[in-house]
């Protein structure tokens, strides 16, 4: 017998572009809407953060809106497809039906937020039966863990013969976790109807991809899991849509998972507090000026699709209206009741008893005991108006 090296089972793929997306004009404008909504909503959050109304850190997806929105748009919501977002996938959640009010309430830790104030930022979900739920799963912080979980979600689709597909996002950094590996391998062996997207935005916190992997690209991992791999321009919303759509169709046809690497760039820091001192000078500006996904798409829409700038401006204005309205609602929302913290750890018992030293005590601390968080929520003054 003779030795041989790793070989490729690559099938050459042609570059996609707008005209192969198969989307009509309305759909294309909807993509624009979601990208703009994502960006503007995060900008609003920055304002609220500066006003110390956000509790905890703020995570941006500036410059990554196309990758989030384009890929999520490739799911079929009418069939009950589901996705599992990460911290840069606000856009994907909006596409699935998450609302700005929910997002704002979450960030402000309100009692009527989707997690009733239990979890931070966009860590919330709505998943279950098709039709009854919108199909996005609440992430936890521990990176990689959502991959096995989504393998299980989509395994259930296969076991039950449901015509549903799942999509899980992971960052370039999260590919280094054991959970990512075990989950994607499990999904491949089990032929789960799952699409795995690696969002390569150049950094994991401060760590550039060349300190995360020695491979040239993340899509090179696909062959080792026995699945097709595709690398695409994540800042091209239509290309992102097209490659994801193809993978979704493969999954729905029972052909198992696909690994998609979307090339993009994280223009803001890991979170608002991060000053990005580790980024080489000029790199951010370069992406901002030459490769902004919304600017590129605007150009496409106006030049190739004959959309008037006026129409886009009107859409932008509508987005601001939506966000203004949502902000008012979210700001008016109450903070949670302290004792709600004892409810719902288990189905049975439904509630934990208050500890003996708290019996009858409703709120735990005096205002002066309250600490400042990492966020800007001011302990001393509460959520200032």
């Amino acid at each position, binding site marked *: 017998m003779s030795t041989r090296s790793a070989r490729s089972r690559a099938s050459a793929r042609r570059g996609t572009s707008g005209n192969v997306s198969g989307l009509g004009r309305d759909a294309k404008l909807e993509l624009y809407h979601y990208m703009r909504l994502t960006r503007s909503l995060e900008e609003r959050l920055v304002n609220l953060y500066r006003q110390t109304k956000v509790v905890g850190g703020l995570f941006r997806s500036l410059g990554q809106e196309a990758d989030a929105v384009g890929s999520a748009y490739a799911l079929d919501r009418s069939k009950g497809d589901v996705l599992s977002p990460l911290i840069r996938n606000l856009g994907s959640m909006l596409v699935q039906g998450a609302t700005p009010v929910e997002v704002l309430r979450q960030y402000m830790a309100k009692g009527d937020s989707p*997690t009733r104030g*239990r*979890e931070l930022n966009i*860590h*919330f*979900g709505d*998943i*279950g*039966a098709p039709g009854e739920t919108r199909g996005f*799963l*609440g992430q*936890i*912080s*521990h990176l990689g*863990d959502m*991959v*096995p*979980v*989504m*393998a*299980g*979600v*989509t*395994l*259930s*689709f296969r*076991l039950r013969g449901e015509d549903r597909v799942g999509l899980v996002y992971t960052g370039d950094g999260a590919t280094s976790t*054991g*959970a990512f590996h*075990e*989950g994607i*391998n*499990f999904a491949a*062996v*089990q032929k789960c109807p799952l699409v795995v997207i690696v969002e390569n935005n150049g950094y994991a916190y401060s760590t550039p991809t060349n300190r995360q992997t020695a491979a040239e690209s993340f899509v090179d991992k696909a062959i080792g899991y026995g699945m097709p791999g595709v690398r695409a321009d994540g800042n091209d919303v239509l290309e992102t849509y097209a490659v994801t759509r193809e993978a979704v169709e493969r999954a729905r046809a029972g052909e198992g998972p696909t690994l998609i690497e979307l090339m993009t760039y994280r223009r803001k820091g890991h979170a608002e507090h991060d000053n990005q001192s580790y980024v080489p000078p000029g790199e951010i500006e370069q992406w901002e000026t030459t490769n902004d996904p919304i600017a590129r798409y605007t150009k496409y829409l106006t030049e190739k699709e004959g959309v008037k700038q006026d129409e886009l401006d009107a859409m932008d204005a509508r987005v601001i209206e939506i966000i203004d309205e949502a902000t008012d609602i979210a700001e008016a929302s109450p903070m949670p009741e302290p004792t709600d913290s004892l409810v*719902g*750890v*288990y*189905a*049975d*018992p439904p509630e*934990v008893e208050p500890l003996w030293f708290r019996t009858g005590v409703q709120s735990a601390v005096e205002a002066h005991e309250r600490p400042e968080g990492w966020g800007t929520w001011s302990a001393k003054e509460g959520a200032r108006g």
Partner: protein
Amino acid sequence: MAEITFLEAIREALTEEMERDENVFLLGEDIGKYGGAFKVTDGLQSKFGENRVIDTPISEVAIVGAAAGAAHMGMRPVAEMQFIDFISNAYDMLTNYVATARYRAFLACPMVVRGPSGGYVRGGPFHSQNPEAAFLHTPGLKIVYPSTASDAKGLMKAAIRDDDCVLFFEHKYLYRRIKGEMPAGDHVVPIGKARTAREGSDVSIITYAATVYKALEAAEQLQQEHGISVEVIDLRSLLPMDDEAIVATVRKTNRVLVLHEDTRTGGIAGEITARINELAFEWLDAPVLRVTAADVPLPYSPPLEDYVLPQTSDVVRAVLRLAEY
């Protein structure tokens, strides 16, 4: 009815639950055609098919994570750890993802993680573990650890039907050594209720799993040789813990020994002692004593394993001390 082994009782529970509810399925390493390292799932794949008894890669994180995902969608997965020692690989997934799902996301996560646990079998440090203490600390999980064949069956059925994640530890020393008759019908043992394994009036031993038998042996010996009447409480469920049963036995005997196979420091005897202290301090005529393994990784050679693990003679000595206190 004929007696069946502890192991067969578990298989019977799995079979009945799979027949009852098509959402129940099994996943784990080598559990299909091979029937599992201990043959707990023997025959189930040929009976229920490959979609209900799934052989997985060696990936405990993925096994537990995938079980959780399927559970969210209405399935009722039962995941096997080939040896429970490998549950430590899924520690993050269980404590961070699974245990918090309902609380932080209002997601049901009805699943069972089961596997052979415990020592006294020359398994060495990585095939003999008792992981209960590591998980007792995690709100959102339930833990059961039966000692009789009929409890093994009844608790497994309860665990599968429970709407939250239940860790089900199966002491491998009991698998084929312990037999029992199964109560007729749909035999479900409620999670969270202890069992009085032997009534007594002088000293109480609170224990669970394999050491229930050490306690019973010691109790017999103490009765015969010293005329001491020992009550043995088999906790069965560790989380939630049956405070009522604990308090009742303390009030009855006023002298308590907590006995477990796990190591001492950080073992769950500490929690039990604290509860007794809080709930029944005035009823104590002696300090709560602990008989446990020594604080070392469990060695494999018989003289070493025998020395490290609690034995009947230790229980006798400890009870005598309590009785004389």
